[in-house]
């Protein structure tokens, strides 16, 4: 036999020295978790296809019966389909016969779904309704007598929609959605998604050459905003000295970063921020003309929902950002910019102009996508090294300031549990 060693070759990875998470708390994060292919494969099952709810889209993206949208949870392709009963369902994007992707464009509309290969046909609720030559032709061939259409429909996921936002789960019995989020997270979720019909303004997508977890670290990190984002800081859109909060749900998997209106910067507080540029002014300030539209004092709320969603409310630019991993060292970041159906023209224009802050060319998010790439480049060749997350201590609880990495620590505390690390 050519490879007698085959069995021994991959040893038992989780027992090895390097691939251990040594510290007792999560104030240290080992760098191998951003590159390891085996861990990545486990994440597909335990994180993305795990027990909870994953974001898949907005109801407003498929307003009419028969409309569908292609997306993915982790690496698994799925699609949303609005049935003839008006309900949105989510299915694995593969024909029950031999796996061909049924939805090949980003969006579409159909009265039934026909697989091109052998024309197996599914109705708008994912039920197999037609198998050509099922009974053979001229008495020959065909499917076996025990073949049942009912047993060969599309694989359907559990779905929960709240205020126009659609979540799906591979779990047989996913938790109650409100429990999954917890009261605090639900409160902030409902703050933006308040039940008004949404209007999709458009999409942007980035292929970010970093591990997907670095995106969550970035958004759960209020510490960086006042230091990395000179643009934000210079125009007072985010400042360390504004009142702010870092909130988690009970498990640490979800979080909210909240920044509120504050006093103009005092010299003392900005002294540490070399990024603050007092003399920087826009020639055309039309770009930034925020108006208050949500209740409360928060001007920015960035919510991260395990395992794949960021809800962005930065002044009047609103977006969901969906994370789709593409191997251990890359992920797709899918931006769905939206407003409300009842926005007037001025508000829509405001949202479109403020979108300049976001996306692949955003005055703010450009910094983030670049810093994630630079992190991955520094991390990946040093799998035995580790990051240190000690800002604001080593705890994982809520904070009423931004000088903390607590939300990242909380995320990893939960992550370790899920991944058995």
């Amino acid at each position, binding site marked *: 036999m050519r490879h007698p060693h085959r069995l021994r070759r991959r040893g038992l990875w989780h027992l090895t020295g390097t691939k251990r998470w040594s510290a007792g708390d999560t104030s240290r994060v080992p760098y191998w978790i951003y590159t390891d292919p085996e861990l990545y494969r486990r994440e597909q099952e335990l994180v993305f296809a795990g027990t909870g709810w994953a974001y898949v889209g907005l109801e407003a993206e498929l307003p009419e019966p028969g409309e569908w949208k292609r997306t993915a949870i982790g690496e698994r392709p799925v699609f949303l389909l609005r049935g003839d009963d008006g309900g949105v369902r989510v299915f694995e994007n593969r024909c029950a016969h031999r796996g061909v992707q049924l939805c090949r464009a*980003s*969006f579409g509309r159909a009265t039934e779904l026909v697989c091109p290969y052998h024309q197996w046909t599914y109705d708008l609720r994912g039920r197999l309704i037609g198998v050509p030559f099922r009974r053979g032709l001229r008495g020959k061939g065909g499917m076996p007598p025990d073949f049942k259409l009912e047993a060969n429909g599309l694989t359907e996921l559990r779905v929960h929609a709240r205020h126009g936002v659609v979540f799906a789960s591979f779990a047989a019995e996913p938790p109650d959605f409100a429990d999954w989020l917890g009261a605090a997270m639900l409160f902030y979720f409902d703050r933006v998604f308040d039940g008004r019909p949404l209007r*999709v*303004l*458009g*999409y*942007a*997508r*980035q*292929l*970010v*050459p970093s591990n997907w977890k670095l995106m969550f670290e970035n958004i759960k990190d209020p510490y960086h905003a006042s230091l*990395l*984002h*000179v*643009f934000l800081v*210079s125009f007072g859109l985010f400042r360390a000295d504004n009142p702010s909060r870092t909130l988690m749900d009970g498990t640490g998997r979800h979080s909210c970063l909240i920044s509120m209106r504050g006093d103009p910067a005092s010299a003392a507080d900005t002294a540490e921020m070399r*990024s603050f*540029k007092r003399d*920087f002014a*826009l*020639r*055309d300030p*039309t*770009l930034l003309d925020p108006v208050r539209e949500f209740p409360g004092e928060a001007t920015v709320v960035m919510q991260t929902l395990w395992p794949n969603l960021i809800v962005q409310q930065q002044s009047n630019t609103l977006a969901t950002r969906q994370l789709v991993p593409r191997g251990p060292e890359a992920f*797709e970041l899918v931006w769905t*910019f939206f407003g409300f159906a009842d926005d007037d023209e001025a508000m*829509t224009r405001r949202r*479109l*102009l403020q*979108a*300049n802050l976001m*996306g*692949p*060319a*955003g*005055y703010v998010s*450009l*910094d983030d*996508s*670049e*810093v994630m*790439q*630079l992190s991955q480049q520094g991390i990946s060749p040093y799998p035995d090294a580790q990051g240190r997350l000690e800002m604001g201590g080593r705890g994982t609880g809520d904070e009423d300031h931004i000088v903390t990495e607590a939300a990242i620590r909380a995320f990893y505390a939960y992550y370790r549990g899920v991944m058995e690390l």
Partner: protein
Amino acid sequence: MTPRPVTPEVRAEIQDLYDAYAEALDDGELERWPELFTEKCRYEALPRENFERGLPLAVILCESRGMLEDRVAALRRTSMYAPRSVRHLISHIRATPDADGFRVRANYAVLQTRVDALTEILSAGRYLDRIVRDEGRLRFREKRVIFDSVLVPNSLVYPL
């Protein structure tokens, strides 16, 4: 009003404008970029996906030369990004006269070179432009960049 014909001289002049556009960005002379637009102008870059579905969202949207200048200033002073250079290949420049200038379509490809990396395709697509004579030279009054792939290789640092 009789549309002015697109004479060989005008063709050449329009070509010159695109040459200057490419040169400004490829040489990293960002400050020369807003000068190629009229004071009142519009620049937007959006994916073909949005364009074809009637969705207005652009990843860059500037509604005045001032906003173009602000973008340049932000790239110079506030944004953080790893160094890179771009290289434009603009072809199939097709002009038709309109009321006060020309409507121009063109194909473009932009190649990007990052430090320590091979040259790669950053973006390809088409320009849908309006050009007018302004202060004795041709300038963009409107430039719409419709890029073919909604998926961007990480960042779009420089305008396309």
